[in-house]
């Protein structure tokens, strides 16, 4: 359960650090711990994918 969501959290953390991870949790309203208990539904995974893209873009923007 939540393996895909967890993987997205891992990729985001890898690239943007703890701050990115917290941003992802705040944008989706779901913490990493909570994600482990959820099903990887299409809606949720897509929501996380969009949010992950935004987190990365924000991170890039702040570095510029």
């Amino acid at each position: 359960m939540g393996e895909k969501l967890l993987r997205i959290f891992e990729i985001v953390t890898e690239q943007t650090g703890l701050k990115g991870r917290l941003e992802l949790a705040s944008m989706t309203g779901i913490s990493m711990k909570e994600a482990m208990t959820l099903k990887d539904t299409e809606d949720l995974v897509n929501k996380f994918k969009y949010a992950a893209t935004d987190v990365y873009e924000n991170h890039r923007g702040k570095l510029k």
Partner: protein
Amino acid sequence: MPATNNIKLIVDNKGENFPARSGRRGLYRWPLAGFSLSSFLQVIAMDQQTCLLDVYNPTNNREGHFYFISGSLYSAECGVLKNEEAALEMISWENARFNIRHLSDTANIAKRISKNLMLLLMESSKRIDEKKADDTGKAEPSEDSREKYTDKIASIEPDKEGAASYQDRYHNTNWTECLTTLERDMGPALIGTAIIDAAAGKIMAGCHGAQATAGLFHKLAGSLRRILPGGSFESLGRYYLLDLKSNLALIALLFGRYHWGIIFSREKMELGLFLHVIVPRLIKTFEYHFSSFDEAAQ
């Protein structure tokens, strides 16, 4: 075993005198190691512990202390650094060792750190990231790493078992097709885009700052609905266009309840080319992907 129990075991070493920092005695003095300080601080805060957390950095032989009262970080010390600056410094330490002690007399400890722990952790994380960026001399991640990141994220597919309905899956594939066409045609001129369901207040798809773009278009749709006759967008035709500051433009393509919002740079995209070539193609793409399904669904 709950985290609280672990901590109770550890604080039983109060009153011990541990002068040495290294060697066998050092291991007793700093019995906890192997996990990140930020995680440990969160556990203390969550468990609402009242304790003194000693931290030792074997890399530079420095040590410091965090004072927690009922899970709230009251103050911190690290050499000449005090409170917030001391906390930020210690949070950034890697491979630190710890010890927890009882704080029996809390009356003399004043609350000198106003920021909550989460804000401090975020601030510290930001500083570490900035330092890393400076150290590597990179102002921003390369296009290559961006591509790899996007590929990694895109390759994650949801479970078949937990997949949404046929209708949702059909639409998700087609939203992606629409966005791919837009990204290909606009190139670097594209600032942000989102397809929203203005009636349901939902974001259906998006990329390049989709959340912010969607938020903006939801607000615009709400404001327009209030001033348009009968709250209908029909009188606006196929789209509306706004000229924004900083040489940006915003266009919303209207497809009934769906609004496809696009923000782009006018410096990088000629308005004539956009309106006469790209917009017709986007409308055609959207209608091609959605008309057959909508007809079938009716």
